């Protein structure tokens, strides 16, 4: 396919403008990182949400519409709609996904303070994914400063991504349904954007047998623990490393007493699959599995926490567009399929064109050496700006 190039002068102008505002970006990022937002701390999350909202409004002005979906036991999800510039208003809505929660518990900032040392930026959540949101906002500012067209934007900010997005998932799906493109400003993988991701299934199996005294009446009972043992072997055997499928029975429990045939047993299972065919195969095997003793009943709970994100032609086209614009910026943009799932999986499962990992350059997500780079922030903010404006081209 051919990608419409945008004038070299515009690309250069965007890059220069972002470059000249590097310190402003870092200041914003510093303020954002200094407000800790662990996924499991509601008070911290709501303070973080308030800061993000006031900061976005300060930078981009009041949105055309704003909607807050309470997260209940989890962080709230906020959806902000910005109309495009006049010359970009006809373009479809571009959704920006950015979670504001981090994996880091309150107080991490004490040991891992926000710091910029040369090109390296450190601090809890700096790479995953606070720098990403800052880049997205500054990309829009760069477009405005350069007088370039910007499509209508919808910012979806959630506070429960790191725990699987239980509350925000329907809001994300609802917000993405009519999107022309969904940009996930999650951290890149060694600079590469993500055009495919594995799906993740979280299943719980409860087995119910018949309790009996094992010594006095050994045949009267039907052991849920024996059934569990059969099940662990059968389900683990579904693992097919070459196909990208792993089935891990990570947690088991069962029974009450040593001398009692177990009346119940439970297993917690994590499944990773690389494509839908494998997801179907595993699911069929899970629902079809029966214990050797028919008196033991099976209940299967849970399901696909994050559906498979396949590299559809629409996703490939978005990547090709980004790669071509990156080339104009002197960046060799690459794509990858490795790495865990994200909210991009939800949008992709709806058939939306998704570009994931469009955020920070750096490394160490969820690890103590987490860092982003200053040069990466500048380069990717300029790229995001060029990308957004390219979507307004007829």
């Amino acid at each position, binding site marked *: 396919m051919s990608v419409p190039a945008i004038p070299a002068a515009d690309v250069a102008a965007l890059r220069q403008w972002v470059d000249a505002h590097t310190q402003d970006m870092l200041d914003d990022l510093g303020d954002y990182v200094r407000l800790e937002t662990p996924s499991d701390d509601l008070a911290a999350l709501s303070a973080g949400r308030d800061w993000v909202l006031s900061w976005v409004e300060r930078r981009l002005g009041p949105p055309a519409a704003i909607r807050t979906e309470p997260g209940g036991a989890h962080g709230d999800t906020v959806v902000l709609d910005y109309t495009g510039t006049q010359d970009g208003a006809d373009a479809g809505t571009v959704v920006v996904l950015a979670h504001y929660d981090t994996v880091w518990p309150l107080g991490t900032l004490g040991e891992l303070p926000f710091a910029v040392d*040369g*090109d*390296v930026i450190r601090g809890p959540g700096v790479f995953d994914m606070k720098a990403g949101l800052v880049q997205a906002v500054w990309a829009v500012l760069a477009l405005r400063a350069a007088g370039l067209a910007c499509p209508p934007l919808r910012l979806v900010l959630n506070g429960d991504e790191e725990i699987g997005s239980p509350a925000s998932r329907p809001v994300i799906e609802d917000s993405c349904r009519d999107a022309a493109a969904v940009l996930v400003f999650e951290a890149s*993988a*060694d*600079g*590469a954007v993500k055009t*495919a991701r*594995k799906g993740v299934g979280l299943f719980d199996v409860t087995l119910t047998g018949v309790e009996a005294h094992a010594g006095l009446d050994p045949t009267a009972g039907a052991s849920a623990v024996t059934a569990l043992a059969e099940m662990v072997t059968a389900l683990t055997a579904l*693992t097919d*490393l*070459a*196909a*990208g499928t*792993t089935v*891990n029975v990570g947690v088991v429990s069962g029974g009450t007493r040593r001398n009692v045939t177990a009346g119940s047993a439970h297993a917690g299972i994590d499944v*990773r699959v*690389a494509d839908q065919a494998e997801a179907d195969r595993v699911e069929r095997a899970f629902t079809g599995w029966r214990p050797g003793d028919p008196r033991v009943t099976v209940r299967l709970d849970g399901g696909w926490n994050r559906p498979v994100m396949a590299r559809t032609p629409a996703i490939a086209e978005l990547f090709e567009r980004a790669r071509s614009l990156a080339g104009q910026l*002197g*960046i*060799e943009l*690459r*794509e*990858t*399929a*490795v*790495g*865990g799932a994200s909210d991009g999986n939800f949008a992709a499962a709806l058939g939306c064109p998704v570009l994931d990992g469009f955020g920070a350059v750096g*490394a*160490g997500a969820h*690890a*103590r*050496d987490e*860092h982003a*780079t*200053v*040069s990466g922030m500048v380069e990717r903010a300029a790229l995001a700006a060029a990308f957004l404006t390219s979507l307004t081209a007829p």
Partner: protein
Amino acid sequence: MSLPPREYTVVGAGAIGGTIAWHLARAGHPVTIVDTDADHARAIARDGIVVERGGVRERQPVAAALTPEEVSVPLRRVLLAVKAHATDTAAGWLAAHLAADGYVVSLQNGLNEDLIAGHVGAERTVGAFVDLFADVVAPGVINDGGAGAIAIGEMSGAVTERVRELAADLSAWGPAVVTANVAGYLWAKLGFGAMLTATALADDAMGDLLDRHRPAGHALVREVLAVATAEGIILEPFDAFEPTAYTGPAASPAGADAATDRLVAWLRTQTKTRSGIWRDIAVRHRATEVPTHYAPVLAAADRHHIDVPVLRALLEQLAEVEAQPISMSESRLGVLDAIATKEAAR
């Protein structure tokens, strides 16, 4: 400049070749680049080599950048930095273009010296061990991740004027020393490299994976180093890797664990958390050099009748992951652990 300028030819302007050429040229040596990619050679001839350090890009012109067909004069000092699988072709070409008193030094990973000597003769082959953190980040742009070490030596072990000169000139890049035991470094790096290669089977930090999968890591090192020992190699330590902790009379399980602790701690200080092999597979979508690097190891293992089951399993798994990067999984290291544990129990 304190040293007299000397003409160098760098064959293969990738990450290693480009970095070394950049530093030599910057130190005032006339450097000629030879690269089979005509566009790449043109770009270097026009723009020089760009090296990025700490986010800052610096341009360095070179004396010339040519394709092999454009080379007309005999070459004296050749630094060979092509990918390992291109060594045979490059060395064959060099046989026709190397001056009678010239030499070729392999700035590559793996055991390439015998192959090169087969083409140009042992007396025109100089050995080298290169431990260098560089990466091509954009066309013509190399990220210089900092200096590790270079050790240079004659295959015979003799210390000659030409290796002294070369080491002195390469000091423009970083720590470059003369050694009588290049093979000792190269084999040690293959042992260490086998552990790092295993971490490319999953998408997580090298240090963390090595820490969690010690049975596999230790077995891989021991297998490779056992072959080295059978070959009569005296192993040399480098960076944070201590081969004698894993093999030989001073080795013990506790000592190996302590050495791995230090290695893991060192890996965790690196800004790059993934290996170059991981990048080749996950990001660059190209075949790795690993099978080429370990082909001589497997051949030597066969010669000495040494079993290397974990290494063989690693290479099989790597081929699967290369074919389908999304199938990276930490379970793969679990499989290697299981093979290693079963072997240890025998």
